[in-house]
């Protein structure tokens, strides 16, 4: 009986069957559901870590202590975890260790589309690339064997279409692995210079052994067919190329891509007339194949930007152009993502927008939408935690420029725990002078409502001590700390005025739950039950459209009547529009 699974579900199943005992991750699209699914298996201790570096370190600890362990993160998360990663290659592992890197070609939900196979090579660890859900499960089991056989961490590089596409999977049973008894081994696990110097040649020797394995493993398989064209490919690009060429080309399908099986590639190349390398994003395999003196064609024809699909490959390699229906552009209006009706971020950004001579450094989360129409407040968004540290550096230079411009740094609760805390330490320690706003919506919002250290619950729903942001920032030495309800525009404005006038680092904490969040008992106690919706008293509306300027998707402007209207099915009664209306034309239902 086969099961229809996403790649992420199959990875979790593979971890279960491989006898994994510990898993840690920070949520990030497209990787998030991996830990949500390992958490369904009581045999695997599954935890959200505050960031990816912490997750990988916790997983390394679990491995050294003798258990099989799994870390999962999106591609940019591996940058955060790069510090331990670069040395794990030296130390190796005890229990098998797999790091999932979920790359996002096409930037569906990411700030860049980096190709992390390059990081696997840089870190000198093994890299495997599944191309569908069945391989996600099978490769996980293989990865743990490889990890323990070669004493090496294994990066399993997935991409959005592997993570989030569903296909049929034959599942198996869990094989319990005995924990490996812990033995103190300082020469292996203390990467001090004296040990590191000795470990580096060991790493190089492992790479030689792994290349031999790469040439022999069935993870790298040849599918012979017509030999006029030979295709070397990996990951989901294999599925795309197979779709286009079918039996009209021979395939060298690589599942184990670092180190590459260069002997196998050379042998394959010698038997085909033309060799194509079909890979998504970077010419990772192609450059190495060319450096080995093997003729091939790759990025000359196939784009290294964006996501591939069968159509792009057919066009690039075969010159096939499909007829397309035309889309009359006058029949189309954009549909950008927006902050939800009732989103607590809206009130804050609306009030912030009124402040002049400010630079707003933003961060990663739903509140990135504070940069979009009609709020248009945010100036920068780069990476997790950058709002506060970039803001500090910017303020230093703005002070030098002497025009009185102030920086407001805006970050979410989960992002603050991820890496905003160290940035805030930078501001306090160096006697900075920025306004730091922590938008605490009581959950990790954008990735789909994962608990975090501030929410008071764990991944498995266990009630734990909530780490209070207010206490954290006061402990760091911030003296002006203002807690405010972001839906109360006057209160937000006063808080901003006080913080902007203050000399020294300040923190404003806006505390209100994400409108999509299922309220916990503590939330209901603190924030109350659902509120009555708002409506527009038609005869009092003057059509000034200030309510529309909040960008609330529940408010519709009727151009013929020149009146605003609130959709009662979309409104949640946040009352931001009610406070914005200069004519008091918006009322609460029941009033």
């Amino acid at each position, binding site marked *: 009986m*086969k099961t*229809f699974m996403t790649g992420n579900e199959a990875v979790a199943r593979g971890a279960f069957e491989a006898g994994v005992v510990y898993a840690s991750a920070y949520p990030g*699209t*497209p990787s*998030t559901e991996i830990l949500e699914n390992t958490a369904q298996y009581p045999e695997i201790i599954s935890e959200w870590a505050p960031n990816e570096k912490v997750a990988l370190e916790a997983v390394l600890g679990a491995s050294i202590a003798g258990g099989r362990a799994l870390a999962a993160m999106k591609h940019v998360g591996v940058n955060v975890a790069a510090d331990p990663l670069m040395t794990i290659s030296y130390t190796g592992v005890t229990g098998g260790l797999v790091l999932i890197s979920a790359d996002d070609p096409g930037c*569906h*939900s990411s700030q860049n589309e980096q190709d992390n196979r390059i990081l696997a090579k840089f870190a000198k660890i093994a890299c495997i690339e599944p191309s*569908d859900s069945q391989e996600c499960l099978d490769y996980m089991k293989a990865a743990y064997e490889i990890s323990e056989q070669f004493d090496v961490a294994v990066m399993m590089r997935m991409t*959005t*279409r592997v993570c*989030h*596409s*569903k*296909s*049929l999977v034959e599942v198996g049973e869990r094989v319990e692995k005995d924990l490996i008894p812990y033995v103190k081994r300082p020469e292996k696990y203390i990467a001090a210079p004296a040990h590191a110097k000795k470990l580096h040649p060991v790493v190089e020797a492992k790479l030689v052994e792994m290349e031999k394995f790469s040439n022999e493993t069935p993870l790298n398989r040849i599918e012979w067919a017509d030999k006029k064209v030979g295709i070397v490919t990996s990951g*989901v690009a294999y*599925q*795309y190329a*197979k*779709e286009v060429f079918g039996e009209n080309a021979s395939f060298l399908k690589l599942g184990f891509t670092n180190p590459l099986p260069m002997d196998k590639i050379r042998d394959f190349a010698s038997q085909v007339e033309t060799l194509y390398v079909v890979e998504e994003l970077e010419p990772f395999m192609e450059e190495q194949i060319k450096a080995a003196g093997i003729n091939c064609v790759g990025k000359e024809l196939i784009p290294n930007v964006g996501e591939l*699909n*069968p*159509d*792009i490959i*057919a066009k690039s390699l075969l010159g096939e152009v*499909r*007829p*397309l*229906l*035309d*889309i*009359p552009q*006058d*029949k*189309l*209006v*954009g*549909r*950008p*993502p*927006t*902050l*939800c009706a009732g989103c607590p971020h809206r009130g804050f950004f609306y009030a912030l927008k009124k402040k002049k001579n400010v630079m707003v450094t933003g961060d990663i989360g*739903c509140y990135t*939408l504070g940069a979009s*129409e*009609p709020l248009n407040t945010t100036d920068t968004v780069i990476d997790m935690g950058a709002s506060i540290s970039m803001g500090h550096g910017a303020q230093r230079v703005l002070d030098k420029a002497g025009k009185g411009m102030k920086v407001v740094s805006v970050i979410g609760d989960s992002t603050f725990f991820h890496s905003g805390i160290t940035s805030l330490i930078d501001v306090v320690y160096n006697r900075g002078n920025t306004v730091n706003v922590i938008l605490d919506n009581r959950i990790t919002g*954008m*990735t*789909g409502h994962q608990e975090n250290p501030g929410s008071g619950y764990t991944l498995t729903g266990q009630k734990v001590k909530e780490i209070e942001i207010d206490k954290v920032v006061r402990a760091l030495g911030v003296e002006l700390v203002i807690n405010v309800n972001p839906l109360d525009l006057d209160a937000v404005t006063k808080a901003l005025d006080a913080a902007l006038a203050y000399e020294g680092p300040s923190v404003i904490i806006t505390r209100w739950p994400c409108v999509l969040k299922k309220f916990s008992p503590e939330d209901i106690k603190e924030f109350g039950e659902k509120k009555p919706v708002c409506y527009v008293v038609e005869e009092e509306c003057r059509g000034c*459209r200030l309510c*529309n*300027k909040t*960008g609330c*998707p529940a*408010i*519709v*402007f009727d*151009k013929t009547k020149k009146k605003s209207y609130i959709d009662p099915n979309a409104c949640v009664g946040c009352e931001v529009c009610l406070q914005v209306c200069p004519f008091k034309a918006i009322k609460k239902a029941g009033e």
Partner: protein
Amino acid sequence: MAEIKNILFAGVGGQGIILASKILAAGLINAGYDVKMSEVHGMAQRGGSVTTQVRYGEKVYSPIIGKGQADLLVSFESMEAMRWLDYMNPKGKVVVNDHELWSAPILMGSAEYPEGILDAIRERAETVVIKAGEIAAELGNPRTMNVVLVGTLIKAMGLEGLDWETVIRDTVKPQFVEINLKALKAGMDQVKG
């Protein structure tokens, strides 16, 4: 069965296109097809344009299609059908819900919802327009709109012979089985022949 069929679902976050895709995929799997389904998560869900793809046949490789390849586009919202029209095989069919959801620029009054979208689609491809929301409301539960659309697409693809009753029974809570079966049939009745 050798030929691979491609169905593209389009709509707006929150309209239930993922559930609809799952129902379709489950019926196809039960019937012995190889099936792949692809969805996009993350920021797009915040009121943005959303698509899923279902591909089926004897052996399916790619989980996604490129432009010009969909045999059927089923759109839960009128303008979204237009947005994804270039993913259609020009010989394919469109099932479109006659239902407008205004996007942010329209709500704010900085753009207008385009007129004549449905006619423009009809001019370009074989099209079935249905009022799935009204049909679902008449049946007594507006939330079954997505299942009405699934019914229409099943008929449009000639898949009405598969065992959809089992899929519905496996997918929805017992108290909603009857209404969803009615919705599915009402959707099928929208396609003649």
